[in-house]
């Protein structure tokens, strides 16, 4: 199974460990993973800021780079959502690209969705002795219907207890550039998410989107919480023995 890994710009820059865990997990499950080296960004920052042209350039680039993978796997609900939910509209001005866009959309999978519904993973190498709570990132949830898949995967991790927070589906307040442009509102929303996380008493908050991750961790630490771990689910699944390169 030839799987293209769309690693995402934030993972690449800030948390490459997530990319390496993803690689390990996929290869461990028997996938032949390719990582197109020219990949940079899915175009979402431009798209959501209203700069269609810039976003279109990057989207066409992604189309080319991942043209010959059987599957394209993305460890991010928002980038996965950008491709699957928005590329068709974004590239609608280029009708000759439609077949390629449709093909890409059909082959693109958010990581948890891929692990559960394509690889049908039953065992994971990781172990987590403690409790976690899961935050449903908005794009993953509402654009890609990722809800049960991460929970199903976490249930396979020995030692792990899942404690749901009161409103796991409530936005964390990141919203891309919103987090900087309307920082006071964004922080307040993040604060409420952190209170919800704290209310579970869990050792870690686990999620599937790097924007949420940086936002939640950033607010937790500033609140004085240096204990609650903030982890991408693939880090929990792959375990600590996974690679720092």
């Amino acid at each position, binding site marked *: 199974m030839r799987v293209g890994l769309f690693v995402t*710009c934030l*993972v*690449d*820059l*800030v948390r*490459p460990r997530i*990319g*390496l865990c993803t*690689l390990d997990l996929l290869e461990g499950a028997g996938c032949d993973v390719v*990582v197109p*080296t020219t*990949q*940079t*960004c899915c*175009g979402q*920052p*431009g*798209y*959501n*800021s*209203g*700069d*269609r042209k*810039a976003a279109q*350039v*990057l989207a066409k*680039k992604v189309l080319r780079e991942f043209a010959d993978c059987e599957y394209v796997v993305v460890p991010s609900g928002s980038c996965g959502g950008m491709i699957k939910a928005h590329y068709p509209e974004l590239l609608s001005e280029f009708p000759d690209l439609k077949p390629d866009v449709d093909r890409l959309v059909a082959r693109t999978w958010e990581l948890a969705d891929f692990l559960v519904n394509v690889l049908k993973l039953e065992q994971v190498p990781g172990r987590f002795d403690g409790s976690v709570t899961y935050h449903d990132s*908005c794009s993953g949830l*509402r*654009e890609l219907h990722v809800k049960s898949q991460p929970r199903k995967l976490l249930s396979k991790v020995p030692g792990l207890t899942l404690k749901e927070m009161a409103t796991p589906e*409530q*936005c964390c*307040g990141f*919203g*891309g550039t*919103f*987090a*900087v*442009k*309307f*920082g*006071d*509102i*964004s*922080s*307040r*929303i*993040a*604060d*409420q998410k952190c209170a919800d996380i704290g209310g579970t008493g869990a050792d870690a908050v686990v999620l599937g989107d790097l924007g949420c*991750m*940086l*936002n939640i*961790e*950033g*607010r937790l*630490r*500033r609140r004085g919480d240096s204990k609650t771990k903030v982890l991408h689910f693939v880090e929990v699944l792959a375990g600590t023995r996974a690679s*720092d*390169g």
Partner: protein
Amino acid sequence: MQVQSEKFKAGAAKSLNNPHLLKAMGNLRNRMVTGRAKSILELDNFEEIREAARATRDLALANLDYLLEEFERNATARGTNVHWAETGKDVNQLVLDIARSNNVRKIIKSKSMLGEETGLNHFLEASGIEVRETDLGEYIIQEAGETPSHIIAPAIHRTKDEVSDLFHEKHKLPRKTDIAEMTREARMVLRPHFLSADMGISGANFLVAESGTTMIVTNEGNGRMTTTLPRVHVAIVGIEKVLPTLEDVAFILRLLTRSATGQSISNYLTFTTGPKQPGDKDGPDEFHVIIVDAGRTKVLDSNLREALRCIRCGACMNHCPVYQNIGGHPYGWVYPGPIGSVLTPAFVGIENAIDLPNAATFCNQCGVVCPVKIPLPDLMRKLREKQVERGLRPRSERLGLKVWAWFAARPTLYSALTRIAARLGHWAGGRTGLIHSLLGGAGWTRDRDLPAPQGKTFRDLYAARARRRI
């Protein structure tokens, strides 16, 4: 209403520092959000109804001219005076003309957001006519000289104590502290106005084309009184509110009341067709319906058309994390929350409401709960695109995006840049791995740390790994 949307950021900051507002928004969530979730469980085919509601609203919009003419024909045949108003000013003038030709001195009003758009009350009062809001929330803000902060619960931002003080001051009666007693006092104070008013003004939730009927959805009884007691009744309605048949209203109502307040049905659904009929002992002698454009045809002719499906339930704002924290006033006009972020720039001009479509995380809680499936984040994105096209974005932002896009399209340069940024960022994070302040990033770092990069890019680590494996 005067547009104050340019003060959005300052308004939001003020809201965030207002503990009363935080509590009020908590009350709103407990009632409206929880209420809605419970009540839609009563509908085993909720999504089917929702899709039919979307389709019916789209059908109405696609045939708007035909249906409005049908409405007019049927309403006129039943003795209704149908008027058309192109602008808010025209609405105000028409209402004044009707009032003057009927020697109207006192008007009672049941809620009309369209009336808020046009500034109807102030206009009529300036012309020497007494106007009394009768919906309790609207009455409170009228007495307080304020604007509504929510389309269903306009006084949600006010605490009980503030209302106690207000009533004590205005009614000149002993100060009440019990909410039921305050409500009773409002009833007592407003009842004489109902009975002595010359004219009633209402909005309309829907116009029914097949029968020339207007209908309103209320809980207090003021809607029924406004449309029954005075000798003249005027309903002002946006063009987009028309539905083909009574059955269309009936099935969509199941979604409207649940989406708005979590009620299976609102207290009073009032369908009005024509004025007093021969033999009737009550009802107005004259019934006027003013069909209003006020920017709606422009929206119909734009890529924001889907916003005209709106049935004014308020679910979007109830579920919006931004609205939940700042309330309605920062939005600066009649409609707050997600629908306000689309309608305000659409109606008052994009340049007068720049922040509104940007003050959204695009979480799409709004789109998921909208009973007529308005794709609110998509419409806000279209407004952001318009802003970019018209050069309305700040220079720094345009530059930042251009730089980002330029590098992202050039992988070799991008990988060099990110290699440096990863290393620098890691260093800036120090031992804690957290960056506490960032040039140009105060919006983030004022209240949050920024987790530092791990030091190397995935690209470089992957390349190194690949080399080791050879």
